[in-house]
């Protein structure tokens, strides 16, 4: 009993890492209709920003945390201006956006390898390392922080999109960019806002990931799992991305905890494919008219 509860906690904590990354993915997808593979690169840069703010500039943690979010926001907007806007202006097919995104992601990874170096670094201890011990079940403090931050950012994001004027503009743009432009919405500005939000989320996800594990230039490759989780939850649906992430985290944990850890990815991804066969739009996916 204790073991199964511990495994569920492990799964939730792995899931919240995926969730933080998946929300940003999903957000951009819902507006731009393509998978922003550069997201992983921004997450990685966020981890480095936070690391240098804490170690080099000795900033208090929360300042570094939001600072890294804001810097990553700028990076994400820059990527959009440089790598996507020219394509958008020329109505390029979506495949080209994806290629451009991969290029941006590789650029960021290699930029860090070349300038900062390939070795990995560790954050200094911010939260006390001793986990809470609830009758034999261990819950890490950082895990709780990550879980809470995943939930808060999701709620804030849903509120922003559903209940603000800007959010309505985002929804309208996702629905039909041309008509929205005719109605007087500055769709170019909407795109910037979306990338800025995605970038901010990527930045704080990077800092939390870096604190929990370590900082290295290949962090971006972890996002492949959160991408899968986002697709599984229903790409374009924010709650779907979060739920998909938690399900993937728990599924992985249960497979390695109760079946064979050697076959973890084999079994958990076969299950995902099976579910997608029956629900091709993902768990909470809507048809393209309703997304965002």
């Amino acid at each position, binding site marked *: 009993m204790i073991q199964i509860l511990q495994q569920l906690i*492990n799964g939730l904590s*792995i899931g919240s890492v995926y969730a933080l990354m998946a929300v940003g993915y999903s957000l951009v997808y819902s507006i731009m209709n393509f998978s922003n593979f550069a997201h992983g690169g921004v997450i990685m840069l966020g981890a480095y920003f936070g690391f240098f703010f804490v170690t080099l500039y000795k900033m208090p943690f929360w300042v570094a945390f939001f600072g890294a979010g804001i810097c990553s926001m700028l990076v994400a907007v820059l990527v959009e201006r440089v790598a996507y806007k020219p394509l958008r202006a020329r109505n390029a097919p979506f495949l080209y956006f994806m290629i451009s995104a991969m290029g941006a992601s590789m650029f960021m990874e290699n930029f860090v390898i070349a300038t900062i170096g390939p070795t990995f670094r560790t954050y200094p201890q911010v939260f006390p*390392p001793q*986990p809470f011990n609830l009758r034999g079940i261990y819950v890490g403090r950082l895990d709780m922080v990550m879980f809470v931050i995943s939930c808060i950012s999701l709620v804030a994001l849903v509120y922003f999109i559903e209940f603000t004027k800007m959010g309505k503009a985002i929804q309208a743009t996702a629905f039909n960019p041309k008509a929205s432009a005719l109605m007087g919405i500055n769709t170019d500005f909407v795109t910037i806002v979306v990338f800025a939000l995605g970038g901010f989320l990527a930045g704080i996800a990077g800092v939390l990931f870096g604190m929990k594990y370590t900082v290295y230039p290949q962090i971006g490759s972890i996002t492949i799992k959160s991408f899968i989780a986002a697709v599984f939850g229903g790409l374009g649906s924010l709650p779907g991305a979060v739920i998909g992430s938690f399900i993937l985290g728990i599924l992985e*944990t249960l497979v390695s*905890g109760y079946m064979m*850890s050697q076959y973890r990815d084999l079994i958990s991804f076969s299950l995902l494919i099976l579910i997608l066969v029956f629900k091709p739009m993902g768990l909470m996916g809507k048809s393209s008219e309703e997304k965002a």
Partner: protein
Amino acid sequence: MSKKVALLILSALLVILSVSGCSQGQNKGASGDVVKVGWIGSLTGDQAVWGQSELNTLKMLAEELNNSGGLLGKKIEIVGYDTRGDATEAVNAVKRLISQDKVIAIIGPNTSSSAMAISGILEEMKVPDIATVATNPKVTVLDGKVKPFNFRVCFIDPYQGAVAAGYAYDVLGFKKAAVLYDVTDEYSQGLAEFFIKTFEEKGGKIVAKEAFKSGDTDFRPQLSKIKAANPDVIFMPYFFKEVALSAKQARDLGIKSVLMGGDGWPSDTLLEMAADAVEGSYFVNHLDFDDPAVQEFKQKYNAKYGKMPELNGYLAHDAFFVLVDAIKRANSFDPVAIRDALETVDIQGITGRIRISKETHNPEGKEAAIIKIEGGKYKFQQKYAVTE
């Protein structure tokens, strides 16, 4: 008219210049005063720290040798290429070293997968290679047949896994062991396999065997399962980044078992990253950092580069002297003659006596060092060889 003459003279000059340039270049490559020795290994990625240490060592030793008169009247130049820890890159690097740089022998790489990938091209081009820390048996022997151009100066995986198992059972008195290993890595699999074999042969019990994939950062699902099996010792045969992460997570889950590992552990980064989590752990190593035999090299390296050499540096050191010994006895820079001489090397290296066996191309009978992490420091316990 004068313009035409000037052009003619100019072009004639250019031709002469380029021809003489060419012949000079050829001379340098074939019979100049410099003989090139290749090195391959990781200069980027997780293992960059180790690769850099190897290359630094070789450059330092070559410089010393050249300053004291060189080898057989020639100067040695080290040409190093980055493999990024990738087997395909390693093959490309070897091709480039042999065909472009005309090296007479190659030292490295530090990973078994790369060392195994290059044996085909070595045999084709007939140039010997001395691997540094590639401990997989298949690096030098495949299907019972020794690979003619592959050599090494370290002991092999079975030996490391067996030493760890023997020490855990016989010396530390542990009866129940768990194994966590990297299912995508041959090194990790090899160590795990032979640890289990020896531990069970001695009468111990393996209570859990769990796997992860390289690139994973979270090991808590596997560790929770291991915790439930309540082992005395957990064997972790993989590299220090994963060791640091998994050791920390194990302690976070309240696991108190002793941790053990292989030669993927030692690194200053491990102590920095894992701190208290690896306190009281043991690992098997190729040598002892406090051994008097290695002090001279350690100090020289530190004086030149401002930091201590990593483990790989010490083995690169011995690989270099194995090669020098072979070249001296072959009395030639012919790669095939060097290969023949390598088969009968018997020198005292700083990591132990290196007596290459003709049948396996491994240094036979090398003792392993058991090291314990105590008070945030590596403490040498004893030299240990597992008895059959």
